[in-house]
């Protein structure tokens, strides 16, 4: 092959670099779902846990607009229970352990929401 001694090692190096994400992923330990500290003495969240896990940011997004813009501060959950719309006064009352609940999942998924730049994290937590 014309200039093969350069081309073939070049291709090998390129393929190696190009597939880096795949083989580096095989070599590193598997992602494990973090163990969260669930609120003691509470059995259920406002909605089923599966839904909360996937959509809590969506709920908070709608909560903000409903409370602030529509003046609707009561959330009637799908099971009929009524909750005050408030991150600090409803969510964080139960999930008082932010470090072992919110942060754990957010950290292991490399997301850093800026909720707590303004919202006050519960006390007895640092």
């Amino acid at each position: 092959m014309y200039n093969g001694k350069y081309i073939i090692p070049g291709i090998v190096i390129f393929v190696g670099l190009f597939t880096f994400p795949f083989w580096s992923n095989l070599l590193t330990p598997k992602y494990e779902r973090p163990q969260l500290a669930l609120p003691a003495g509470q059995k259920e969240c406002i909605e089923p846990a599966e839904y909360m896990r996937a959509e809590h940011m969506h709920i908070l997004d709608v909560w903000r607009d409903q409370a602030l813009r529509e003046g609707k501060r009561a959330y009637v959950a799908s099971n009929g229970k009524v909750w005050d719309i408030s991150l600090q006064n409803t969510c964080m009352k139960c999930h008082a352990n932010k470090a072992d609940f919110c942060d754990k999942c957010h950290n292991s998924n490399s997301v850093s929401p800026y909720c707590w730049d303004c919202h006050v994290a519960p006390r007895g937590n640092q």
Partner: protein
Amino acid sequence: MSTTRRQFLKIAGLSVFGLGASTALDAADAVAKDMPGAKYEVGGKHLAAKRWAMVIDTRKLESREDYARIIDACHKVHNVPSIPTKQEIKWIWTDKYDRVFTDDMSQHLSPAVREKDYLLLCNHCENPPCVRVCPTKATFKRADGIVVMDYHRCIGCRFCMAGCPYGARSFNFGDPRPYLKEVNPAFPTRMRGVVEKCTFCSERLEVGLLPACVEASNGAILFGDLDDPNSPVRKALAENFSIRRKPSIGTQPGVYYIV
């Protein structure tokens, strides 16, 4: 193999388009869904009005302590920091007559009136310039006349500060938290880069409470529905002479002063 380069490129182009389209469809599919059955309602305890307004009876406010008590009450519940520089944050504060009622041209005002302190706060204008200039709709007027902010949306452009004729807005040049002696855990703070102002205590009205400054004023500040002739504000306005700040510019302030 009779594939020409032209055919190959066509197929490659189509495949890329298909891939892109399917990812876009997946993304559209993944749009968050509301939990079926969940609803949003106005809380049972909330106080409602067509047009909230405030009347400040300046005759009942005299000593420094009167003002301090009212200002502290507001700033404590709302986590307003006390920053001792030009970068101060204020929701409610005081100033002298000629800087408050700038339209008044009377040359020989009684010294008592001229030397007095007057409480100042956002006027929750009927025609609020701050709302008109806000490019993000972070500042908006609610149906009940209260002008509020959604700090999540504020980009810190400060157009609203330039637009407000009453200096009712403050900008957070830095993180306000180091300047808070104690934090009210039931209310958020603000962050660096947003503007803030008095909310007419909309969050308290929502749960059936009157504004904190009204509660702390021992009756010197009245609060009620301007559209209801039997409300305390309308009664006070009917019985007393009152003025508003800069009435000539047409903003229609919702804060009245009995002098």
